[in-house]
Protein backbone atom coordinates (compact mmCIF):
# COMPACT_ATOMS: atom_id res chain seq x y z
CA UNK A 1 0.00 0.00 0.00
CA UNK A 2 1.87 3.08 -1.22
CA UNK A 3 0.50 6.59 -0.99
CA UNK A 4 0.72 8.82 -4.04
CA UNK A 5 1.00 12.58 -4.01
CA UNK A 6 -2.74 12.73 -4.77
CA UNK A 7 -3.48 10.65 -1.67
CA UNK A 8 -1.33 13.03 0.36
CA UNK A 9 -3.31 15.98 -1.00
CA UNK A 10 -6.60 14.42 -0.01
CA UNK A 11 -5.36 13.58 3.51
CA UNK A 12 -4.00 17.14 3.77
CA UNK A 13 -7.45 18.48 2.98
CA UNK A 14 -9.04 16.22 5.61
CA UNK A 15 -6.37 17.50 8.03
CA UNK A 16 -7.05 21.13 7.02
CA UNK A 17 -3.42 21.68 6.06
CA UNK A 18 -2.36 23.84 3.11
CA UNK A 19 0.89 22.06 2.23
CA UNK A 20 3.55 23.46 -0.08
CA UNK A 21 4.71 21.32 -3.02
CA UNK A 22 7.98 20.66 -1.24
CA UNK A 23 6.17 19.52 1.91
CA UNK A 24 3.93 17.21 -0.11
CA UNK A 25 6.96 15.50 -1.66
CA UNK A 26 8.76 15.15 1.64
CA UNK A 27 5.67 13.85 3.46
CA UNK A 28 4.94 11.30 0.74
CA UNK A 29 8.37 9.76 1.33
CA UNK A 30 8.21 9.93 5.13
CA UNK A 31 4.71 8.55 5.46
CA UNK A 32 5.36 5.68 3.07
CA UNK A 33 8.44 4.77 5.09
CA UNK A 34 6.41 4.71 8.30
CA UNK A 35 3.59 2.71 6.71
CA UNK A 36 6.13 0.09 5.63
CA UNK A 37 7.18 -0.15 9.24
CA UNK A 38 3.58 -0.60 10.37
CA UNK A 39 3.31 -3.69 8.11
CA UNK A 40 5.23 -5.50 10.84
CA UNK A 41 2.04 -5.57 12.94
CA UNK A 42 0.37 -7.88 10.41
CA UNK A 43 2.77 -10.64 11.55
CA UNK A 44 0.77 -10.94 14.75
CA UNK A 45 -2.41 -12.96 14.97
CA UNK A 46 -4.95 -10.79 16.76
CA UNK A 47 -8.10 -12.75 16.07
CA UNK A 48 -10.24 -12.72 19.23
CA UNK A 49 -8.04 -10.04 20.84
CA UNK A 50 -10.03 -7.15 22.28
CA UNK A 51 -8.70 -3.70 21.29
CA UNK A 52 -7.42 -1.40 24.05
CA UNK A 53 -8.65 2.16 23.71
CA UNK A 54 -7.92 3.07 27.31
CA UNK A 55 -5.85 1.22 29.88
CA UNK A 56 -8.29 1.92 32.67
CA UNK A 57 -11.90 0.82 32.67
CA UNK A 58 -13.51 4.20 31.96
CA UNK A 59 -17.21 4.60 31.46
CA UNK A 60 -19.31 7.72 31.19
CA UNK A 61 -18.99 9.80 34.33
CA UNK A 62 -22.20 11.45 35.46
CA UNK A 63 -22.79 14.25 37.93
CA UNK A 64 -25.78 16.20 39.11
CA UNK A 65 -26.72 19.04 36.78
CA UNK A 66 -26.01 21.90 39.13
CA UNK A 67 -24.85 25.38 38.25
CA UNK A 68 -21.19 25.97 39.14
CA UNK A 69 -18.99 29.04 38.65
CA UNK A 70 -17.57 29.15 35.13
CA UNK A 71 -15.41 31.48 33.06
CA UNK A 72 -16.68 34.98 32.40
CA UNK A 73 -17.49 35.85 28.80
CA UNK A 74 -14.56 38.31 28.78
CA UNK A 75 -12.20 35.50 29.76
CA UNK A 76 -13.65 33.19 27.13
CA UNK A 77 -12.96 35.61 24.29
CA UNK A 78 -9.76 37.06 25.78
CA UNK A 79 -7.49 35.14 23.41
CA UNK A 80 -9.56 35.54 20.24
CA UNK A 81 -7.59 36.79 17.20
CA UNK A 82 -10.57 38.93 16.20
CA UNK A 83 -13.40 39.71 18.62
CA UNK A 84 -16.37 42.05 18.35
CA UNK A 85 -19.14 42.39 20.96
CA UNK A 86 -17.88 39.29 22.81
CA UNK A 87 -18.12 37.20 19.63
CA UNK A 88 -15.33 35.57 17.61
CA UNK A 89 -15.26 37.08 14.12
CA UNK A 90 -14.56 34.70 11.21
CA UNK A 91 -14.79 35.04 7.42
CA UNK A 92 -18.28 34.69 6.03
CA UNK A 93 -19.51 31.08 6.28
CA UNK A 94 -22.91 31.21 4.57
CA UNK A 95 -23.18 32.02 0.90
CA UNK A 96 -25.22 35.03 -0.10
Amino acid sequence: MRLTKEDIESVAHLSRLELSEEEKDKLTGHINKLLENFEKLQELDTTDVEPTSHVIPVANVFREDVVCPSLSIEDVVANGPQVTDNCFVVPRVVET
Partner: protein
Amino acid sequence: MAQELYQLTCHELHDLLKSKKVSAREIVQSFIDRISAVEDKVKAFVTVTPEIALEQAAAVDEAIAKGEEIDPLAGIPGAIKDNMSTRGVLTTCSSKILYNYKPVYDCTVVERLKDQSYVMIGKTNLDEFAMGSSTENSGFFTTHNPWNLETVPGGSSGGSAAAVAADECAFALGSDTGGSIRQPASFCGVVGMKPTYGRVSRYGLVAFASSLDQIGPITKDVTDCAIVMNAICGKDPRDSTSLDVPVPDFTKSLVADVKGIRIGIPKEFFAQGTDPDVENAVRNAIDVLIKLGADAKEISMPSVDYGLAVYYIIAPAECSSNLARYDGVRYGLRSKDARDVISMFRQTREEGFGAEVKQRIMIGTYALSAGYYDAYYLKAQKVRTLLRRDFEKAFEECDVLISPTSPTVAFKIGERADDPFAMKLADVCTIPVNLAGTPGISIPCGYKNGLPIGLQIMAKGLDEETLIRVAYTFEQNTDYHLRKPSL
Protein backbone atom coordinates in the same frame (compact mmCIF):
# COMPACT_ATOMS: atom_id res chain seq x y z
CA MET B 1 27.66 27.16 53.33
CA ALA B 2 29.78 25.28 50.86
CA GLN B 3 26.98 24.90 48.34
CA GLU B 4 24.94 27.59 46.65
CA LEU B 5 21.20 27.58 47.41
CA TYR B 6 20.34 26.84 43.78
CA GLN B 7 22.27 23.56 43.95
CA LEU B 8 20.13 22.14 46.74
CA THR B 9 17.20 19.74 46.55
CA CYS B 10 13.64 20.68 47.49
CA HIS B 11 13.88 18.84 50.81
CA GLU B 12 17.18 20.53 51.71
CA LEU B 13 15.71 23.94 50.87
CA HIS B 14 12.59 23.13 52.90
CA ASP B 15 14.71 22.29 55.96
CA LEU B 16 16.58 25.59 55.64
CA LEU B 17 13.30 27.51 55.32
CA LYS B 18 11.70 25.75 58.26
CA SER B 19 14.66 26.38 60.52
CA LYS B 20 14.64 30.02 59.32
CA LYS B 21 18.24 29.81 58.15
CA VAL B 22 17.23 31.34 54.81
CA SER B 23 14.19 33.16 53.49
CA ALA B 24 12.11 32.19 50.46
CA ARG B 25 13.21 35.47 48.92
CA GLU B 26 16.88 34.50 49.23
CA ILE B 27 16.14 31.12 47.66
CA VAL B 28 14.27 32.63 44.75
CA GLN B 29 16.92 35.31 44.19
CA SER B 30 19.59 32.59 44.08
CA PHE B 31 17.72 30.81 41.28
CA ILE B 32 17.02 34.06 39.40
CA ASP B 33 20.76 34.84 39.48
CA ARG B 34 21.58 31.30 38.38
CA ILE B 35 19.21 31.62 35.42
CA SER B 36 20.87 34.92 34.45
CA ALA B 37 24.26 33.22 34.57
CA VAL B 38 23.59 30.05 32.54
CA GLU B 39 20.36 30.41 30.58
CA ASP B 40 22.11 31.86 27.52
CA LYS B 41 23.95 28.57 27.15
CA VAL B 42 21.19 26.13 28.16
CA LYS B 43 18.07 27.84 26.75
CA ALA B 44 15.71 25.77 28.90
CA PHE B 45 12.95 28.37 29.26
CA VAL B 46 10.39 29.80 26.88
CA THR B 47 9.30 32.26 29.59
CA VAL B 48 11.03 33.17 32.86
CA THR B 49 8.77 34.61 35.57
CA PRO B 50 10.98 36.33 38.20
CA GLU B 51 8.33 38.86 39.24
CA ILE B 52 5.75 36.16 39.96
CA ALA B 53 8.40 34.13 41.78
CA LEU B 54 9.42 37.01 44.06
CA GLU B 55 5.79 37.82 44.81
CA GLN B 56 5.02 34.20 45.72
CA ALA B 57 8.20 34.06 47.84
CA ALA B 58 7.15 37.17 49.78
CA ALA B 59 3.87 35.48 50.70
CA VAL B 60 5.76 32.43 51.98
CA ASP B 61 8.13 34.57 54.05
CA GLU B 62 5.13 36.32 55.54
CA ALA B 63 3.55 32.99 56.49
CA ILE B 64 6.80 31.83 58.10
CA ALA B 65 7.10 35.12 60.01
CA LYS B 66 3.60 34.56 61.38
CA GLY B 67 4.72 31.18 62.66
CA GLU B 68 2.55 29.19 60.22
CA GLU B 69 3.42 25.61 59.28
CA ILE B 70 4.64 25.46 55.69
CA ASP B 71 4.14 22.68 53.13
CA PRO B 72 7.11 20.77 51.70
CA LEU B 73 7.12 22.77 48.44
CA ALA B 74 6.36 26.20 49.95
CA GLY B 75 8.83 28.76 48.67
CA ILE B 76 10.53 26.19 46.40
CA PRO B 77 11.12 27.32 42.79
CA GLY B 78 9.64 24.96 40.22
CA ALA B 79 9.58 25.09 36.44
CA ILE B 80 6.50 24.10 34.45
CA LYS B 81 6.61 22.57 30.98
CA ASP B 82 5.07 25.02 28.56
CA ASN B 83 2.20 22.69 27.64
CA MET B 84 0.56 23.09 31.07
CA SER B 85 -1.92 25.94 31.39
CA THR B 86 -0.86 28.74 33.73
CA ARG B 87 -3.34 31.55 34.28
CA GLY B 88 -2.17 34.81 32.78
CA VAL B 89 1.24 33.38 31.81
CA LEU B 90 2.12 32.46 28.21
CA THR B 91 1.55 28.77 27.46
CA THR B 92 2.88 28.15 23.96
CA CYS B 93 3.51 24.39 23.71
CA SER B 94 6.63 25.72 21.90
CA SER B 95 4.40 26.18 18.86
CA LYS B 96 4.02 29.24 16.67
CA ILE B 97 0.30 28.52 16.56
CA LEU B 98 0.07 29.39 20.30
CA TYR B 99 2.78 32.08 20.32
CA ASN B 100 0.56 34.58 22.19
CA TYR B 101 -1.75 32.27 24.15
CA LYS B 102 -2.36 33.20 27.80
CA PRO B 103 -4.67 30.69 29.51
CA VAL B 104 -7.47 32.06 31.65
CA TYR B 105 -7.23 29.19 34.13
CA ASP B 106 -4.57 27.05 35.82
CA CYS B 107 -4.18 23.36 35.13
CA THR B 108 -4.95 21.15 38.14
CA VAL B 109 -1.32 20.24 38.87
CA VAL B 110 -0.36 23.92 39.04
CA GLU B 111 -3.35 24.60 41.30
CA ARG B 112 -2.12 21.81 43.56
CA LEU B 113 1.42 23.19 43.64
CA LYS B 114 -0.02 26.63 44.42
CA ASP B 115 -1.96 25.06 47.30
CA GLN B 116 1.48 24.24 48.71
CA SER B 117 2.67 27.82 47.97
CA TYR B 118 5.33 26.71 45.49
CA VAL B 119 7.10 29.39 43.47
CA MET B 120 6.84 29.42 39.67
CA ILE B 121 10.20 30.33 38.17
CA GLY B 122 9.24 29.85 34.51
CA LYS B 123 7.83 27.80 31.65
CA THR B 124 10.13 25.34 29.90
CA ASN B 125 10.84 24.53 26.28
CA LEU B 126 9.62 21.34 24.60
CA ASP B 127 9.32 19.71 21.23
CA GLU B 128 6.28 21.37 19.66
CA PHE B 129 3.15 19.96 21.34
CA ALA B 130 5.43 17.39 23.05
CA MET B 131 6.10 15.60 19.75
CA GLY B 132 9.76 14.70 19.66
CA SER B 133 12.74 13.37 21.57
CA SER B 134 15.27 16.22 21.57
CA THR B 135 13.54 19.68 21.72
CA GLU B 136 14.83 20.17 18.16
CA ASN B 137 11.17 20.23 17.08
CA SER B 138 10.47 23.28 19.25
CA GLY B 139 8.94 26.04 17.16
CA PHE B 140 11.29 28.55 18.85
CA PHE B 141 14.76 27.13 19.65
CA THR B 142 16.62 24.02 20.75
CA THR B 143 17.55 23.49 24.41
CA HIS B 144 21.12 22.41 25.11
CA ASN B 145 22.16 19.58 27.42
CA PRO B 146 23.96 21.10 30.45
CA TRP B 147 26.42 18.16 30.46
CA ASN B 148 27.59 18.95 26.94
CA LEU B 149 26.10 21.95 25.19
CA GLU B 150 26.58 20.37 21.77
CA THR B 151 24.19 17.54 22.62
CA VAL B 152 20.41 17.46 22.96
CA PRO B 153 18.73 17.37 26.39
CA GLY B 154 16.28 14.73 25.17
CA GLY B 155 12.59 15.42 24.81
CA SER B 156 9.99 16.31 24.74
CA SER B 157 10.37 17.67 28.31
CA GLY B 158 13.96 18.68 27.47
CA GLY B 159 13.57 22.18 28.87
CA SER B 160 12.34 20.86 32.22
CA ALA B 161 15.11 18.24 32.50
CA ALA B 162 17.84 20.68 31.44
CA ALA B 163 16.55 23.33 33.87
CA VAL B 164 16.76 20.86 36.77
CA ALA B 165 20.21 19.58 35.70
CA ALA B 166 21.53 23.14 35.28
CA ASP B 167 20.18 24.12 38.73
CA GLU B 168 17.90 26.74 37.18
CA CYS B 169 15.02 25.40 39.29
CA ALA B 170 14.70 23.06 42.26
CA PHE B 171 12.22 20.78 40.49
CA ALA B 172 10.13 20.73 37.33
CA LEU B 173 7.01 19.17 35.91
CA GLY B 174 7.08 17.31 32.61
CA SER B 175 4.56 15.32 30.62
CA ASP B 176 5.20 11.84 29.26
CA THR B 177 3.34 10.37 26.27
CA GLY B 178 6.02 7.96 25.02
CA GLY B 179 8.95 8.73 27.32
CA SER B 180 8.97 12.52 27.39
CA ILE B 181 9.79 12.71 31.12
CA ARG B 182 12.04 9.67 31.53
CA GLN B 183 14.17 9.98 28.39
CA PRO B 184 15.21 13.64 28.94
CA ALA B 185 15.74 12.86 32.66
CA SER B 186 18.08 10.09 31.50
CA PHE B 187 19.97 12.37 29.06
CA CYS B 188 20.32 15.11 31.69
CA GLY B 189 21.24 12.89 34.67
CA VAL B 190 18.22 13.68 36.83
CA VAL B 191 15.23 11.76 38.24
CA GLY B 192 12.03 11.61 36.18
CA MET B 193 8.86 9.68 36.88
CA LYS B 194 5.87 8.87 34.73
CA PRO B 195 3.11 7.90 37.15
CA THR B 196 0.40 5.32 36.43
CA TYR B 197 -2.08 6.56 33.82
CA GLY B 198 -4.85 8.27 35.80
CA ARG B 199 -2.76 9.02 38.93
CA VAL B 200 -2.42 12.69 38.00
CA SER B 201 -5.11 14.93 36.56
CA ARG B 202 -4.58 16.01 32.95
CA TYR B 203 -7.00 18.94 33.28
CA GLY B 204 -5.28 21.94 31.71
CA LEU B 205 -2.48 19.88 30.15
CA VAL B 206 -2.66 20.67 26.44
CA ALA B 207 -3.68 17.32 24.98
CA PHE B 208 -1.39 15.39 22.61
CA ALA B 209 -2.46 11.72 22.86
CA SER B 210 -5.07 11.49 25.58
CA SER B 211 -4.86 7.76 26.28
CA LEU B 212 -1.09 8.02 26.86
CA ASP B 213 -0.33 11.50 28.29
CA GLN B 214 0.60 11.71 31.95
CA ILE B 215 2.20 14.51 34.03
CA GLY B 216 5.04 13.74 36.42
CA PRO B 217 7.99 15.18 38.35
CA ILE B 218 11.58 15.83 37.24
CA THR B 219 13.81 16.25 40.29
CA LYS B 220 17.38 16.14 41.61
CA ASP B 221 16.83 13.06 43.75
CA VAL B 222 14.28 10.35 44.56
CA THR B 223 13.19 12.03 47.81
CA ASP B 224 12.10 15.12 45.87
CA CYS B 225 10.30 12.86 43.38
CA ALA B 226 8.21 11.45 46.25
CA ILE B 227 7.52 14.95 47.60
CA VAL B 228 6.29 16.27 44.24
CA MET B 229 4.23 13.11 43.67
CA ASN B 230 2.50 13.74 47.01
CA ALA B 231 1.59 17.22 45.82
CA ILE B 232 0.21 16.41 42.35
CA CYS B 233 -1.53 13.00 42.54
CA GLY B 234 -5.21 12.35 43.17
CA LYS B 235 -8.70 12.30 41.73
CA ASP B 236 -9.88 15.46 39.98
CA PRO B 237 -13.56 15.81 39.05
CA ARG B 238 -12.50 17.83 35.97
CA ASP B 239 -10.58 14.86 34.48
CA SER B 240 -12.86 11.85 34.24
CA THR B 241 -9.85 9.59 33.54
CA SER B 242 -8.18 10.50 36.83
CA LEU B 243 -8.43 7.57 39.20
CA ASP B 244 -10.52 7.64 42.34
CA VAL B 245 -8.07 5.62 44.43
CA PRO B 246 -6.29 6.48 47.68
CA VAL B 247 -2.97 8.29 47.23
CA PRO B 248 -0.32 6.93 49.60
CA ASP B 249 2.26 9.15 51.28
CA PHE B 250 5.08 8.41 48.83
CA THR B 251 7.75 9.65 51.25
CA LYS B 252 6.96 6.55 53.38
CA SER B 253 8.48 4.51 50.53
CA LEU B 254 11.86 6.21 50.92
CA VAL B 255 13.25 3.05 52.49
CA ALA B 256 16.71 1.80 51.54
CA ASP B 257 15.87 -1.89 51.43
CA VAL B 258 15.33 -4.20 48.46
CA LYS B 259 15.57 -7.55 50.23
CA GLY B 260 13.31 -10.03 48.49
CA ILE B 261 12.43 -7.67 45.63
CA ARG B 262 12.07 -9.68 42.41
CA ILE B 263 13.63 -7.91 39.42
CA GLY B 264 12.75 -8.90 35.86
CA ILE B 265 15.22 -8.11 33.08
CA PRO B 266 13.18 -8.14 29.85
CA LYS B 267 15.58 -9.02 27.05
CA GLU B 268 13.57 -7.15 24.41
CA PHE B 269 14.50 -3.86 26.13
CA PHE B 270 18.17 -4.52 25.37
CA ALA B 271 17.59 -5.03 21.67
CA GLN B 272 19.29 -3.69 18.58
CA GLY B 273 20.97 -0.33 18.85
CA THR B 274 21.70 -0.47 22.58
CA ASP B 275 25.09 1.09 23.32
CA PRO B 276 27.21 -1.62 25.07
CA ASP B 277 28.35 0.96 27.64
CA VAL B 278 24.73 1.78 28.46
CA GLU B 279 23.93 -1.93 28.78
CA ASN B 280 26.94 -2.43 31.09
CA ALA B 281 25.92 0.44 33.33
CA VAL B 282 22.39 -0.96 33.61
CA ARG B 283 23.65 -4.50 34.35
CA ASN B 284 26.03 -3.09 36.97
CA ALA B 285 23.10 -1.28 38.56
CA ILE B 286 21.15 -4.55 38.71
CA ASP B 287 24.19 -6.17 40.36
CA VAL B 288 24.20 -3.41 42.99
CA LEU B 289 20.56 -4.23 43.79
CA ILE B 290 21.29 -7.98 43.87
CA LYS B 291 24.12 -7.40 46.35
CA LEU B 292 21.62 -5.51 48.49
CA GLY B 293 19.31 -8.51 48.58
CA ALA B 294 17.15 -8.36 45.45
CA ASP B 295 16.67 -11.33 43.12
CA ALA B 296 16.88 -10.92 39.37
CA LYS B 297 16.08 -13.04 36.35
CA GLU B 298 15.91 -12.61 32.58
CA ILE B 299 12.42 -12.63 31.13
CA SER B 300 10.88 -12.20 27.68
CA MET B 301 8.12 -9.82 26.59
CA PRO B 302 7.80 -10.52 22.86
CA SER B 303 5.16 -7.84 22.10
CA VAL B 304 7.58 -5.12 23.16
CA ASP B 305 9.20 -5.42 19.72
CA TYR B 306 5.98 -4.00 18.25
CA GLY B 307 5.77 -1.06 20.67
CA LEU B 308 7.17 1.60 18.32
CA ALA B 309 4.82 0.66 15.48
CA VAL B 310 1.78 0.59 17.78
CA TYR B 311 2.74 3.94 19.29
CA TYR B 312 3.29 5.63 15.93
CA ILE B 313 -0.25 4.72 14.92
CA ILE B 314 -2.11 5.40 18.18
CA ALA B 315 -0.35 8.64 19.22
CA PRO B 316 -0.75 10.35 15.80
CA ALA B 317 -4.36 9.17 15.56
CA GLU B 318 -5.19 10.78 18.89
CA CYS B 319 -3.11 13.88 18.07
CA SER B 320 -4.85 14.40 14.73
CA SER B 321 -8.11 14.65 16.63
CA ASN B 322 -6.79 16.70 19.58
CA LEU B 323 -5.04 19.25 17.37
CA ALA B 324 -8.12 19.89 15.24
CA ARG B 325 -8.96 22.70 17.70
CA TYR B 326 -6.17 24.94 16.38
CA ASP B 327 -8.09 26.67 13.64
CA GLY B 328 -7.39 30.36 14.20
CA VAL B 329 -10.87 31.08 15.58
CA ARG B 330 -10.68 31.20 19.37
CA TYR B 331 -7.01 31.63 20.28
CA GLY B 332 -3.49 31.75 18.94
CA LEU B 333 -2.35 32.48 15.43
CA ARG B 334 -4.70 33.39 12.58
CA SER B 335 -3.34 33.58 9.06
CA LYS B 336 -3.73 36.93 7.40
CA ASP B 337 -4.09 35.29 3.98
CA ALA B 338 -7.55 33.84 4.55
CA ARG B 339 -10.03 34.19 1.68
CA ASP B 340 -12.78 32.12 3.26
CA VAL B 341 -13.25 30.07 6.39
CA ILE B 342 -11.73 26.83 5.04
CA SER B 343 -8.66 28.62 3.71
CA MET B 344 -8.36 30.34 7.09
CA PHE B 345 -8.17 26.93 8.79
CA ARG B 346 -5.74 25.56 6.21
CA GLN B 347 -3.44 28.60 6.05
CA THR B 348 -3.40 29.10 9.82
CA ARG B 349 -2.42 25.48 10.41
CA GLU B 350 0.14 25.56 7.60
CA GLU B 351 1.84 28.65 9.06
CA GLY B 352 1.47 27.68 12.72
CA PHE B 353 2.52 24.01 12.86
CA GLY B 354 6.05 22.69 12.35
CA ALA B 355 7.03 19.76 10.12
CA GLU B 356 6.84 17.01 12.76
CA VAL B 357 3.41 18.07 13.97
CA LYS B 358 2.07 18.21 10.41
CA GLN B 359 3.49 14.77 9.70
CA ARG B 360 1.81 13.27 12.75
CA ILE B 361 -1.52 14.92 11.99
CA MET B 362 -1.30 13.50 8.46
CA ILE B 363 -0.45 9.95 9.63
CA GLY B 364 -3.19 10.04 12.25
CA THR B 365 -5.79 11.35 9.84
CA TYR B 366 -4.85 8.67 7.32
CA ALA B 367 -4.86 5.86 9.92
CA LEU B 368 -8.34 6.88 11.04
CA SER B 369 -9.78 7.42 7.57
CA ALA B 370 -12.46 5.18 6.08
CA GLY B 371 -11.00 2.01 4.62
CA TYR B 372 -7.77 2.07 6.63
CA TYR B 373 -9.11 2.18 10.19
CA ASP B 374 -9.13 -1.60 10.65
CA ALA B 375 -5.70 -2.17 9.11
CA TYR B 376 -3.94 0.46 11.20
CA TYR B 377 -5.77 1.91 14.18
CA LEU B 378 -7.80 -1.13 15.21
CA LYS B 379 -4.83 -3.45 14.62
CA ALA B 380 -2.63 -1.21 16.76
CA GLN B 381 -5.20 -1.19 19.56
CA LYS B 382 -5.30 -5.00 19.49
CA VAL B 383 -1.52 -5.27 19.64
CA ARG B 384 -1.66 -2.79 22.51
CA THR B 385 -3.76 -5.40 24.34
CA LEU B 386 -1.05 -8.03 23.70
CA LEU B 387 1.53 -5.67 25.09
CA ARG B 388 -0.52 -5.03 28.22
CA ARG B 389 -0.83 -8.78 28.71
CA ASP B 390 2.96 -9.13 28.49
CA PHE B 391 3.30 -6.59 31.30
CA GLU B 392 0.61 -8.29 33.39
CA LYS B 393 2.33 -11.63 32.97
CA ALA B 394 5.74 -10.16 33.85
CA PHE B 395 4.37 -8.60 37.03
CA GLU B 396 2.94 -11.95 38.15
CA GLU B 397 6.51 -13.10 38.76
CA CYS B 398 8.40 -9.81 39.20
CA ASP B 399 7.95 -6.76 41.42
CA VAL B 400 9.87 -4.46 39.09
CA LEU B 401 11.35 -4.58 35.60
CA ILE B 402 14.66 -2.90 34.85
CA SER B 403 16.06 -1.67 31.53
CA PRO B 404 17.98 1.23 30.04
CA THR B 405 15.79 4.35 29.83
CA SER B 406 17.14 5.01 26.35
CA PRO B 407 19.47 2.83 24.24
CA THR B 408 22.15 5.55 24.11
CA VAL B 409 23.35 8.66 25.92
CA ALA B 410 22.45 12.12 24.58
CA PHE B 411 23.22 12.53 20.87
CA LYS B 412 24.60 15.58 19.08
CA ILE B 413 22.25 18.38 18.06
CA GLY B 414 21.34 17.87 14.40
CA GLU B 415 22.66 14.30 14.25
CA ARG B 416 19.28 12.59 14.00
CA ALA B 417 17.15 15.50 12.82
CA ASP B 418 16.75 14.20 9.26
CA ASP B 419 16.21 10.58 10.16
CA PRO B 420 12.81 10.29 11.81
CA PHE B 421 13.33 6.65 12.61
CA ALA B 422 16.70 7.06 14.38
CA MET B 423 15.11 9.80 16.47
CA LYS B 424 12.21 7.58 17.46
CA LEU B 425 14.54 4.78 18.61
CA ALA B 426 15.48 7.01 21.56
CA ASP B 427 12.04 6.17 22.97
CA VAL B 428 11.99 2.45 22.25
CA CYS B 429 12.36 1.48 25.95
CA THR B 430 9.92 4.03 27.34
CA ILE B 431 7.00 3.75 24.88
CA PRO B 432 5.79 0.28 26.01
CA VAL B 433 5.19 1.66 29.52
CA ASN B 434 2.82 4.35 28.21
CA LEU B 435 0.99 1.79 26.10
CA ALA B 436 0.52 -0.41 29.20
CA GLY B 437 -0.43 2.58 31.38
CA THR B 438 1.99 1.49 34.09
CA PRO B 439 4.46 3.69 36.03
CA GLY B 440 8.16 4.10 35.28
CA ILE B 441 11.06 6.07 36.68
CA SER B 442 14.46 7.02 35.30
CA ILE B 443 17.41 7.60 37.64
CA PRO B 444 21.09 8.18 36.81
CA CYS B 445 23.24 5.00 36.89
CA GLY B 446 26.47 5.93 35.13
CA TYR B 447 28.25 8.19 32.65
CA LYS B 448 29.76 7.76 29.21
CA ASN B 449 32.15 10.44 27.90
CA GLY B 450 30.77 12.78 30.54
CA LEU B 451 27.14 12.16 29.54
CA PRO B 452 24.66 10.57 31.97
CA ILE B 453 23.15 7.10 31.53
CA GLY B 454 19.60 6.46 32.76
CA LEU B 455 18.22 3.38 34.52
CA GLN B 456 14.54 2.70 33.92
CA ILE B 457 12.59 0.92 36.65
CA MET B 458 9.02 -0.17 35.88
CA ALA B 459 6.31 -1.48 38.19
CA LYS B 460 2.71 -2.63 37.89
CA GLY B 461 -0.12 -0.11 37.75
CA LEU B 462 -0.47 2.04 40.92
CA ASP B 463 2.69 0.61 42.45
CA GLU B 464 4.81 3.77 42.39
CA GLU B 465 5.70 2.94 46.00
CA THR B 466 7.85 -0.01 44.96
CA LEU B 467 9.47 2.10 42.21
CA ILE B 468 10.38 4.78 44.72
CA ARG B 469 11.71 2.22 47.18
CA VAL B 470 13.95 0.49 44.62
CA ALA B 471 15.13 3.78 43.12
CA TYR B 472 15.83 5.23 46.56
CA THR B 473 17.80 2.14 47.61
CA PHE B 474 19.99 2.38 44.51
CA GLU B 475 20.48 6.11 44.98
CA GLN B 476 21.44 5.79 48.67
CA ASN B 477 24.07 3.18 47.80
CA THR B 478 25.63 5.06 44.85
CA ASP B 479 26.64 8.63 44.12
CA TYR B 480 25.67 9.16 40.45
CA HIS B 481 22.93 11.62 41.46
CA LEU B 482 25.40 13.88 43.28
CA ARG B 483 27.43 14.83 40.20
CA LYS B 484 26.77 18.19 38.59
CA PRO B 485 27.57 19.44 35.11
CA SER B 486 30.09 22.27 34.95
CA LEU B 487 28.57 25.26 33.22
